[in-house]
């Protein structure tokens, strides 16, 4: 094969890999794909190997290994292997990498999406008694008459709130 043809084949394999990855769901937020969450940082071809770069959301996220194996399985099942997965910590994952469509999917699923993180001077200079965040919009009824129940939730990435209008509790994907 000519160099050009090889490059074409490599590109086709990368495109196909992205296609497959869009179908690999996060085990704890099963409406979002690993691409929606922004944890796939890159796909490249190196000879035989398909390199996939992932980044963890939280240092201790217990889903990290599960995600890694579902990514590997899906790519291999699609005949795109052999696959090599690299976990890359820098730059650190931020909820800002969750796409706009993914935020809408979260809301529709009943999870209040994260706001944009602005690492402003205000956030950096810590103030006691400033922890209660501004009221979120309820993902079910849209009311802002909500309150936080718990700073931590069922997974590292979520907190628990409740709507005082429709009385439903809901989760919030924390902005980090």
């Amino acid at each position, binding site marked *: 094969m000519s160099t050009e043809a090889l490059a074409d084949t490599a590109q086709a394999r990368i495109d196909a890999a992205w296609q497959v990855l869009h179908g690999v769901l996060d085990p704890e937020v099963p409406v979002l794909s690993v691409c929606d969450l922004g944890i796939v940082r890159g796909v490249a071809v190196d000879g035989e190997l398909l390199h996939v770069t992932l980044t963890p959301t939280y240092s201790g996220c*217990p889903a990290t290994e599960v995600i890694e194996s579902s990514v590997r399985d899906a790519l291999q099942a699609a005949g795109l292997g052999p696959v090599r997965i690299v976990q890359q910590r820098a730059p650190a994952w931020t909820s800002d990498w969750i796409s706009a469509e993914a935020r809408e999917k979260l809301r529709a699923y009943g999870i209040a999406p994260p706001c944009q993180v602005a690492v402003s001077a205000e956030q950096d200079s*810590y103030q*006691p008694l400033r922890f209660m965040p501004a009221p979120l919009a309820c993902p079910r009824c849209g009311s802002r008459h909500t309150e936080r129940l718990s700073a931590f939730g069922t997974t590292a990435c979520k907190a628990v709130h409740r709507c005082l209008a429709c009385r439903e509790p809901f989760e919030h994907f924390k902005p980090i």
Partner: protein
Amino acid sequence: MNAVASVDLQLTPTLSYLLRPADTALIHAQRLTEWCGHGPVLEEDIALSNMALDLLGQARALLAHAATVATVAGQAGQAGQACAGLDEDQLAFLRDEGQFLNFTLAELPLRKPGAHSSAPASGGDFADTVLRNFLLATWFKALWTRAVQSTDSELAGIAAKALKEARYHQQHAGDWVVRLGDGTAESARRMQAALQRAWPYTTELFAHDAVDEAAVASGLGPARRDLQADWQRDVDNTLAAAQLQAPAATPFISTGSTGLHSEHLGHVLAEMQFLQRRFPGGRW
């Protein structure tokens, strides 16, 4: 039963510099985990476990990195246990007490009976947990804020991620310090007593030695004493909001970060390391 030899590391300044926050995060996580299923309210039970999980993840990343720069001392390493084979699990589960370099503050009992003579006989006081969490999260935040500039790109990467988590931990724990300190007479009395107990152990957080010296010289990271101003500012703000008085400084300096521990760490390790020592290489 197979005897498992302990991993005996050659403690270079670089390795020690990485082990200090790694072990502090690991042992602090282990102590917080003791609350799992015993929290005073469900939300706090979940919060403590979640924070422990973040700390465990940070410890894992730091230990995995430490394993790449570690060398085994003398002939203590078994044949075939070349340095290249070291990983974070061996560092966590096969090191002896004297090679753990966590701050003493992280290893003192929190929940189990006998934690503090003045605490309720049923177990430690929740005030001690809240306060320690706040003091250590504030220290970690100060460390990670500066360590993002490390010349060691792996450490810088770990710092950037851990910083986001430390901020959240600090806010959560700080909230509780204020809530209890500025709460009822009883909660204020107990927060102040917890502060009195923890305070002498905070001096170590800013001690200075050859390990700090070498880290500054190589650009690996900040010296502990350079973190004190940031820490003090956040702690003073919170104590003021909580109506608590910082105790007077004492000449005592704890020595966990040099491997000289209180009588409590051995018990923590006995529980934490038991499975890997009894069933070497055991996996889930």
